[in-house]
């Protein structure tokens, strides 16, 4: 009886202590990770006189959206958002077109050298695009694609092939091969099988690949910075960076531009959270 009550009490203490610790971690984690985002928003919606007031008001006394109106009217930011949207969607379309058949083949065919090719693709994925930015710049110059969206889209597609192949292949791998064998016996050829039988099942994978490519294109900076020159052609990441240089002391405007640049991704993330988590774990652990 004595031991039982002792272990009972210690379990209770355990529970209490660990629950308290968990709450503490949650609280600190929430504060550390949410505060910067909230701060950017808070900065962008405060009246002018509260930007550099001492003592600082963490929460503005009133909310005003005048700076958003200024930024939208007096800068190219809408154009940059549009450019990024266009580039990201075309990149996703191009990637899916290229990568779906390849991922299917790497999952379903057995051929000599498959493993070596897959590992080579993984190697390419691991090498950062920053390393090859100089030859890529020369390549774009040779083809006259500097300062064009087509050039940038082509670069993005090219750079994202390895990651996308691996990720999509891992989704094909989760679908039992009996499913397509049955379709083949029923007289479907491979293309029909892929289209009618496998694609519907692999849709979550297609969604994850699309989302990750969209986020990549939206956020990418180095290549855009290297290829694009004309501010009318800037992507949102490039645009916000140039905006920061131009309005270095107008903190409210910079904050507003940053909020505009991150809101689409945050909304998308909140809506499609499940896909993000599975993509992060599958994409990373399996290569």
């Amino acid at each position, binding site marked *: 009886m004595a031991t039982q009550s002792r272990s009972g009490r210690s379990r209770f203490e355990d529970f209490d202590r*660990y*629950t308290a610790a*968990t709450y503490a971690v*949650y609280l600190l*984690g*929430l504060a*550390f990770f*949410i505060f910067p*985002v909230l*701060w950017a928003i808070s*900065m962008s919606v405060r009246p002018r006189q509260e*930007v*550099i*007031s*001492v003592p*600082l008001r963490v929460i503005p006394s009133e909310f005003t959206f005048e700076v958003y109106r200024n930024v939208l009217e007096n800068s190219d930011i809408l154009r940059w958002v549009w450019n990024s949207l266009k580039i990201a969607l075309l990149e996703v379309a191009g990637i899916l077109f*290229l*990568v779906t*058949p*390849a991922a299917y*083949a*790497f999952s379903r*065919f057995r051929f000599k050298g498959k*493993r070596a090719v897959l*590992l080579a693709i993984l*190697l*390419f994925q*691991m*090498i*950062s695009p*920053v*390393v*090859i*930015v*100089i030859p*890529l*710049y*020369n390549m774009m110059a040779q083809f006259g694609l500097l300062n064009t969206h087509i050039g940038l889209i082509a670069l993005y*597609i*090219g*750079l994202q*092939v*390895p990651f996308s192949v691996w990720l999509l292949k891992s989704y094909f791998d989760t679908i039992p091969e009996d499913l397509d064998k049955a379709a083949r016996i029923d007289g479907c*050829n*491979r293309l029909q099988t892929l289209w009618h039988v496998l694609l519907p099942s692999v849709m979550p994978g297609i969604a994850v690949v699309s989302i990750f490519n969209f986020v990549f294109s939206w*956020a990418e900076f*180095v290549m855009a910075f290297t290829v694009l020159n004309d501010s009318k052609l800037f992507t949102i*990441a490039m645009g*916000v*960076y140039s905006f*920061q240089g131009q309005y270095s002391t107008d903190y409210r405007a910079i904050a507003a531009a940053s909020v505009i*640049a*991150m809101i689409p991704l945050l909304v*998308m993330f909140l809506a499609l959270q499940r896909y*993000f988590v599975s993509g*992060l*774990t599958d994409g*990373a*652990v*399996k290569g």
Partner: protein
Amino acid sequence: MSTETDTGTKDPSVTGTERLRSALGRFVWLQENPIPWVFPAIAVLLAFRLYPLVEVVRMSFTDMSLLSDSYSYVGIEQYLDVLSAPGFWTMARVTLIFVAISVIGQIVLGLILAMAIDYGVKKHIRGSVSTRIAVLSAWVIPGIVIGIIWQLMMIEAPYGVLNFFLTQLGFDVVAWLSDPQMALLSVITANTWRGTAFSMIMLYAGLQQVPQQLYAAAKIDGASAIQRFRHVTIPQIKPVVFINLVLITIYTLNTFDMIISLTGGGPGRATQVLALFMYFKGFQSFNLGEAAAIAVLMLLVNVVMTFVYMRFLIEEEGI
């Protein structure tokens, strides 16, 4: 389609259906070969990934410049010049500090969060989902924007929000971005903020793989929580920690966007890490050859890390 016109128009004795069948047959045969399926993706891969790699190595042996069209080969001397340039070792030191501390920060924070959320989910503690979402949302924000947001928080006047909190707690105002050592610390903090989500998710996935019986058995044997962590959790998640370590080292080493908008590499060269150093050499000093040589050094580190990662992956997951 082309086969149909090839055979069809010349030979009237072949019926339409037969023609179609032979075309289809050829099409089906083609489908049974993996090459047409993978060819487009592989071709793009060779053009945008392999060719530039070969090219960057070739360029590293030349004196290529953005300012002139002609160039000549200078050979290995390029590397000797790069390694003996005065700025190089300063940059290497800055990079090493940046990578080492950021990586440790991301792993430690990621592990603490992953374990808390793992515990919280099992015990149905409120806030588990919100915390996970909050951490992950940092990962979605573009690097450029992350740099800008942290810069806004690190305004050095008393009205900068971080300084405001410090002065409220009775400390002095800190020169977050204009003091060289503080600037490096600031860049490391922002990078840790950005990268922790990835570590957290990976380590959380790793924790889910630990068989629960092991904990139960350890408990029966009288192991304390710390002992369970040391003798059950750590050995079980070691593979995931290792993979995570390699991946975030590579990511951190190649960081460019966040630093360029947070400090631009400054003050002076206090936060000029490898990627910025290479980029500026190429596109600000126009010295493509030298920049390519620095890129090759960067490539070597990437490749070594990747091989470590792949060996491990092959052993663990049997790819």
